[in-house]
């Protein structure tokens, strides 16, 4: 690196960082704005945070979104793990090609199409077998779990593919039945991938506006839907406050995760040192 002088790359870095972070900084800044007008500074205040926490509609939507995301992520991890295991371990089963295609489709299909096709299916099912009756939280969960499972499958598949097959064979050889091998050996070893998949699915579900808008019914308004509709009526500084809270939560999460990884890395290095020493 060159000392003294900022240079071209330094300037480009600064521009890049500004481009990424100025909007977020402004969002946080204006969440403490006294003024009712979003773009005019009127002094410091916490009134929009107060307003946010007393807004029952907003809180209900947030709680609904979190519940949907948690349930979705759990279902997606179960389905995605099963699909991943089938793809990696079952060899060239019949219909594998079709199965792979079905897994990949939600990853590349526009959300509008997913949402629309889901809606059509739910309506048809309601008419044909009476389940799911009406639309709401349940239909959102089903729709979200469907496309989130695809992402989890990809994560699990790559982790399983890298897993040494002989670990499972060794467990079998030592007398464990196949199902036990899966739960006692395979699952604990691929656990990091399952956690990553769960978090990914949670985020995707929490974030989703399009699919949820299609398949929801009266009474089930998720947070993104509420924010989007309230912004359409005119941006309220309350949304800034909500945005700031989310940014804060995400930042804390990232900092914790990084610290944890650093600690693990240090421990691992110490262990390796120990192993070499004897």
């Amino acid at each position, binding site marked *: 690196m060159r000392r003294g002088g900022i240079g071209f790359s330094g300037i480009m870095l600064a521009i890049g960082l500004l481009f990424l972070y100025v909007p977020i900084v402004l969002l946080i800044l204006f969440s403490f704005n006294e003024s009712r007008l979003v773009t005019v500074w009127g002094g410091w205040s916490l009134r929009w945070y107060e307003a946010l926490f007393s807004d029952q509609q907003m809180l209900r939507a947030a709680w609904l979104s979190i519940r949907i995301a948690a349930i979705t992520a759990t279902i997606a991890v179960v389905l995605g793990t099963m699909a991943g295991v089938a793809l990696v371990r079952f060899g060239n089963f019949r219909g594998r090609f079709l199965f792979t295609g079905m897994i990949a489709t939600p990853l590349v299909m526009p959300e509008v199409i997913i949402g629309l096709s889901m809606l059509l299916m739910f309506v048809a099912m309601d008419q044909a077998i009476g389940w799911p009756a009406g639309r709401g939280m349940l239909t959102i969960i089903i729709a979200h779990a469907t496309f989130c499972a695809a992402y989890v499958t990809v994560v699990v598949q790559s982790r399983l593919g890298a897993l040494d097959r002989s670990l499972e064979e060794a467990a*079998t*050889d*030592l*007398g*464990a039945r196949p199902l036990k091998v899966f739960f006692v050996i395979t699952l604990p070893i691929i656990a990091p991938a399952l956690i990553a998949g769960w978090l990914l699915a949670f985020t995707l579900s929490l974030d989703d506006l399009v699919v949820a808008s299609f398949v929801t019914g009266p009474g089930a308004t998720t947070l993104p839907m509420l924010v989007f509709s309230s912004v359409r009526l005119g941006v309220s500084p309350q949304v800034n406050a909500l945005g700031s809270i989310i940014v804060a939560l995400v930042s804390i999460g990232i900092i914790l995760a990084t610290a944890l990884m650093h600690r693990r890395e240090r421990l*691992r290095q110490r262990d390796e040192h120990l*192993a070499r020493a004897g």
Partner: protein
Amino acid sequence: MAGGQQPTDRAGAFAEPWRDPHQTPLIRIERLTKTFGDFYAVDDVSLDIYRGEFFSLLGGSGCGKTTLLRLMAGFEMPTEGRISIDGVDLAGVPPHRRPVNMMFQSYALFPHMSVARNVAFGLRQEGLPSAEIRSRVADALELVKLDRLAKRKPHQLSGGQRQRVALARCLVKRPKVLLLDEPLAALDRKLREETQFELVNIQEQLGMTFVIVTHDQGEAMAMSTRVGVMDEGRIVQIGTPNEVYEYPTSRFVAGFIGSINMFDGVLAESAPDHALVEGVGEPVRFHIDHGIAAPASATVTVAIRPEKMRLSKTLPEGFTEDSPNLLRGTVDEIAYLGGQSIYVVVLESGRMVRVSVPNTHRMTELPITWEDPVYVSWPAFAGVVLVD
């Protein structure tokens, strides 16, 4: 190289159950074939292994030795043929119910379990009381000298220690047969030699039957009671280390184990107590001190180990210029290996012969050196005649 190392023949010290027709083998493999598509990984293999043996499957990569081991462990299902252990046919018996355990080349230690839990894993599957599990695990760890490290995780161990954990994890189950897939391949050379002897000691101490897969002929020779040499899915020769080294039955085995000089020839005289082979492309006759089971004028190969040949500047005693078992040439290369030197001699025809000379005296100057014209001679018992 087996030619350099003295091959220890452990079979001599033991009863040799494979020579006793009244013995029943522990493992009986009958006409076993395993194909992957068109590829014959194991091709019509029949093999008997007896209780207490240390049996090596030796061969290059892709010869089917690992597939044969995996067939015994139950990870592959035979295309044809059968395997039985202790008289029980293993067809349809899944790997977790077989009375065998396998030690994997990668060791396959469970990364999320401590050493003690790795070793205890197999016993837990049997549902033994925890007090018994604890004492057996402690015994096994003591046997492989790892009792101090019971609480460590696999990634906190060195390669040699991991190998011991893998061994202890199999031994603690007290299987009828222990299968070892290249158990020493991942260790460095010095550790490998130490571990060889340790493995043999443990096997003798426990009286267990070991079947080991290896590509290292020195390893197979040093440890085994018998060696099965494999090539292209078939077992080409089974015998004690001594037999496969001294009496190879094919060009492949002769060339694969140790180094050897091979000459083409035609059987000129075939008597019950001796034979005479006329060299082809080489002005030499081979006098062999035993009879050959082949008709006269059959084409044969005569194979002679480098350490059985002698090198001299003058005509060796008892030889005349036109004696059999004598070659003339010039020294082309000398490799000084400490305990012995390998001389490469160029014959008049241009072909090379390797002769190994033990360095029994302490000297700084070699009595025979580069470009010296020399005689290469060998006794009548040295030549092995191969008819393939």
